[in-house]
């Protein structure tokens, strides 16, 4: 029997699986993740040597944990549905893009458009996120321990973006109904994004998000809330000259 067959058989019986991307291809990893059946006892996965590879653990749809030991490239955890992914390093562009549910935690920094178009789940960036964080978010919750870059939450539709640090220029440009909570300074607000009153229900919501993201020593009352002024929802004839 070829050696690879043997190791597959052995590994298959274990509840935890280790994939070393120096030894196996990314496609083998993702295929193995996609082959998981509901109720599988292989619930703890570990990925070694990701070395900036793209699309690590994309499209997972089972409630497993995946620990990625190192930094990843584009689209890590994209379309995640129910798994809990931890990146023990930094993430390239598009981490958690279009996440449906589950969670992704990045121990380091995240590059551009973290959580873009995400429909659900929780994305936690323990370092800084870059530009366009939460662009077009559609229900995802994003908690960034550090700062976020410019054009974050552009056209954000729903969900919550929580930033413990500062936000770059044009935060929430053309925002719909997402809620943005920023503890530090905001370089500038984008079109139709305004500061809003923090009511008790927002404080409660925010505290829940901070708790879920494992944030301690920070009070919900330290944040400001931003959201849509809703003036772009309908065409205003006074703006006709602008077109």
């Amino acid at each position, binding site marked *: 029997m070829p050696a690879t067959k043997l190791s597959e058989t052995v590994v298959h019986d274990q509840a935890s699986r280790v994939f070393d991307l120096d030894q196996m291809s990314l496609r083998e990893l993702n295929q193995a993740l996609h082959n998981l059946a509901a109720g599988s006892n292989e619930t703890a996965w570990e990925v070694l040597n990701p070395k*900036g590879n793209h699309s690590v653990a994309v499209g997972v749809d089972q409630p497993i944990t995946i620990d990625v030991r190192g930094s990843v490239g584009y689209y890590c955890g994209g379309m995640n549905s129910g798994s809990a992914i931890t990146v023990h390093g930094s993430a390239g562009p598009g981490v958690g893009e279009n996440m449906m549910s589950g969670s992704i935690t990045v121990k380091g920094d995240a590059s551009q458009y973290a959580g873009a178009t995400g429909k659900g789940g929780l994305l936690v960036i323990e370092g800084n996120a870059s530009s366009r964080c939460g662009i077009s978010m559609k229900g995802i919750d994003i908690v960034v321990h550090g700062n976020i870059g410019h054009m974050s939450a552009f056209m954000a539709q729903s969900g919550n973006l929580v930033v413990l640090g500062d936000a770059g220029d044009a935060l929430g440009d053309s925002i719909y109904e997402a809620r943005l909570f920023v503890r530090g300074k905001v370089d500038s607000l984008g079109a139709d994004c305004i500061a809003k009153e923090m009511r008790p229900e927002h404080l409660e919501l925010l505290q829940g998000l901070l708790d879920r993201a494992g944030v301690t020593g920070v009070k919900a009352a330290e944040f400001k809330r931003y959201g849509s002024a809703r003036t772009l929802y309908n065409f205003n004839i006074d703006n006709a000259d602008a077109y």
Partner: protein
Amino acid sequence: MCGIVGLFLKDKSLEPQLGSMLSQMLISLSDRGPDSAGIAIYGAPSKNEAKITIQSAKPERDFRGLEAELAKAIGTPVTITVKSTHAVVRAKPAKIDEAREAIQTLRPDIRIMGVGDVVEIYKEVGLPEAVVDRFDVRSMTGTHGIGHTRMATESAVTTMGAHPFSTGADQCLVHNGSLSNHNNVRRELIREGMTFETENDTEVAAAYLSSQMAHGKNLGEALEGTLSDLDGFFTFVVGTKNGFGVVRDPIACKPAVMAETDQYVAFGSEYRALTKLPGIDNARVWEPEPATVYFWEH
């Protein structure tokens, strides 16, 4: 897309490995651009000679006998080292401009890739690995270098459309992105007396920086000028005789990541390009900020 890399060594003990380190970085980004690839290496300076990197589509015809003819034409010895379609011409620094003119008279089909005291530039159509092998880049030594793998957008897939572009002595530039006002800027620079080899947008960026530095600006100030004078998408990595710089446009959608240790400063379009550098696990790794100039000088 396109992939760009840069490596600026602080630790002299790494200099013999510059070519192999930079080659590995560039090859790791091959899937960002399969059209053509190029590399510029800044070697050890010499008081006695300057260099011209030349290229010919017909090297057997154009390089044969050139050494003797050129020496005769400029009245001083020259050496020519041929590497595939490229060759490096070495002559006394005081004679280098004369040599350049003489080459163009003696062999009108030869293209000048770059001129300077230390820089050598190699670029061709093909994948990074093929280009690196063709010019034996891995064996090259030096203090710093930049590289590019191209997915063409603004001009044809040709050797001359490949990066790096060099428009001034020991100056060169690689670019990820596309410029939208390059025709206007090219016209202005032509009026100033700059010359262009191609219709390529990146050559305009290189010439813009050369022009700024010719007007007395340092590398950092010249890079600062790109933010107001060049319109479009860009991440530039730039080399000068003793310097290395990076700038991204204010929108910054072209990816970039940098790493710094006591031994080097490295740039890659992606982190993938940096993973095999020594000590990378403990390096300071960061994404360069939009509209912010970074530069280092020896």
